[in-house]
């Protein structure tokens, strides 16, 4: 609910409550009926209000008063439910206990029922009185407007307010329900994707774990090869040894997960006649191959790809080719240097040094 509509709903609710209070006051204040009596002195007209009708000895007038009391009680109900809907709006705006607020707001829609009852009963009451002979509805002075129309008018205003309130409340309730359904669906979708991703990562971990040392050995040269190309293998320095050690272990996890790579990694496993290696194709066969799964898999891979690539670029040192001149023999040669300090040795004279 936006602020504009909340304010409008609050105003409508205020209108309902105020009109009902005015209606109740008018019920007690106004003269309702005029009773014509023929006595010895002539025709006398007595005007009755609700209090006078209640105290009357005449049973018929007493019944008429009871009808008006019923209408008054419906006005009271409109006030109570109007106030309730007001509370609902405030709770809704405060965004505290939103479901309770929704419930109260829907409950507030009961004002429409009571407003309809008020208007219907009042209209019925007027028609009923008009059909009587000795009793008539009181008129405002010399005007031909009946007093009973004033509470009826107030009842109609209350009814209009109730209808618009119900419209607003229903609209927002439907909107909220649709929103919650959509949210639920998207949450389910996200959950499915996450579970797929988890499944996939589990399978992936399993394949990594189940690779035997033989396979590791077979794959190791492939992985190390590009690194060897860029490093100074002639000078097996300590940091490089450490690096190579590090690379041997985490390369499996670091490498980006593309289906092509997955296949290329699995291909060399086929000719190896080992029991442990034979497990792997079985694992891959177990993977679900439905189009939905493939779609989810590819999206998961796509999502994961940039992260892994980023990690790799962060971890892999950037290597530059620089020309170095030996201070001893003045020989100029090219070396590949990373960001750290690199140990170099002149290929001509064998002078050792460092490149910062």
């Amino acid at each position, binding site marked *: 609910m936006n602020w504009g509509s909340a304010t409008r709903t609050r105003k409508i609710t205020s209108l309902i409550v*105020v009109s009902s209070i005015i209606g*109740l006051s008018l019920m007690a*204040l106004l*003269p309702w009926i005029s009773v014509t009596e023929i006595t010895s002195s002539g025709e006398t007209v007595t005007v009755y*209000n609700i*209090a006078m009708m209640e105290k009357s000895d005449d049973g018929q007038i007493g019944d008429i008063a009871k009808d008006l009391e019923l209408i008054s009680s419906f006005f009271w109900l409109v006030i109570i439910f109007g106030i309730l809907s*007001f509370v609902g709006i405030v709770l809704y705006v405060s965004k505290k206990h939103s479901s309770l607020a929704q419930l109260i707001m829907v409950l507030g829609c009961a004002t429409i029922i009571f407003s309809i009852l008020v208007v219907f009963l009042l209209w019925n009451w007027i028609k009923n009185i008009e059909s009587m002979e000795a009793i008539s509805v009181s008129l405002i002075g010399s005007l031909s407007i009946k007093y009973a129309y004033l509470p009826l008018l107030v009842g109609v205003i209350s009814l209009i307010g109730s209808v618009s309130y119900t419209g607003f409340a229903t609209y927002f309730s439907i909107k909220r329900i649709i929103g919650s359904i959509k949210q639920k669906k998207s949450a389910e979708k996200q959950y499915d994707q996450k579970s797929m991703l988890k499944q996939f990562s589990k399978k992936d971990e399993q394949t990594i774990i189940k690779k035997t040392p033989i396979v590791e050995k077979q794959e190791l040269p492939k992985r190390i090869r590009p690194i060897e190309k860029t490093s100074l293998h002639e000078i097996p320095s300590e940091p490089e040894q450490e690096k190579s050690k590090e690379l041997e272990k985490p390369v499996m996890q670091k490498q980006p997960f593309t289906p092509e790579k997955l296949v290329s990694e699995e291909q060399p496993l086929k000719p190896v006649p080992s029991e442990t290696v034979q497990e792997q194709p079985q694992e891959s066969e177990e993977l679900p191959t439905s189009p939905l799964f493939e779609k989810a898999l590819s999206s998961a891979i796509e999502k994961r790809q940039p992260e892994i690539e980023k990690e790799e670029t962060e971890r892999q040192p950037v290597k530059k080719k620089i020309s170095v001149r030996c201070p001893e023999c003045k020989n100029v040669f090219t070396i590949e240097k990373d960001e750290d300090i690199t140990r170099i040795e002149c290929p001509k004279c064998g002078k050792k040094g460092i490149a910062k």
Partner: protein
Amino acid sequence: MNEEFALGAKRGKKLKEEILDESFKKAEISRGIRLPDKKPSKKSYEKTFPKLGVLLIIFAIIGLIFIYNVPWAYIKYDTGEEQVEASIYRNFEGAGSENQQILDLFRSPHYIGLSIDDFTDMPTSASYGFILLIVLGVILTLFGILDKIRNFSLETSIIIHFIFAIVTIVTGTFIVLSVIKILGSHFLLGYNMPLIPDLSNIILFFPAAFVVVVFGFIIVKLAFTIMRMDFNELQKIKEIGTTSEQSFSQYAQEGKFQ
């Protein structure tokens, strides 16, 4: 045509520049390079629990004073020989047994719809309403004092405030409706006066009932105003997006609420 086109292009350019300036300013403010322009501060919301509670108590006490001390009916009529004046208080005190005509007026056949019992019942129910308002005022004041100690959030305060306002509206309506019957009788007297025997020149007035009805309506109106203010304030809080864990006074001191 060309001139119009050029004018339109010029306007568009100006508008674009304005938008760019504004967004640039916003960006500067968000980055902390520039201080936001100071707007003239509006009157801000206050936690009015103790004040409102005390005000409610005062209103209710004044109402009770009126009920007990102001005459519920003032009657003046001419018997032909002399003019009779009488002030009737609650429980029909002051009517006097000698004024038989006044007693007859409030007995059958009820030309004004009021009976002697009504002068007991109506003031009693109105006084119950005012006592309830005093109780509400006391609770509201206590809550205000508690709020000073515990420092409730602004949202909680507003909701509690709101509930009190609703109860006040219901009580005020009850007070009005319990007494308005008397005013109805005054209205009815204009129609039925020719029927009342021996009291053709009667002047009947109900001061206490009139005052109580006015009081009741004022209370209802005030409660509605408070509800509206609370609602607007709640909206403002939600628009600003504060969690309102701090009291308003703190915000006011910091100048966050404008």
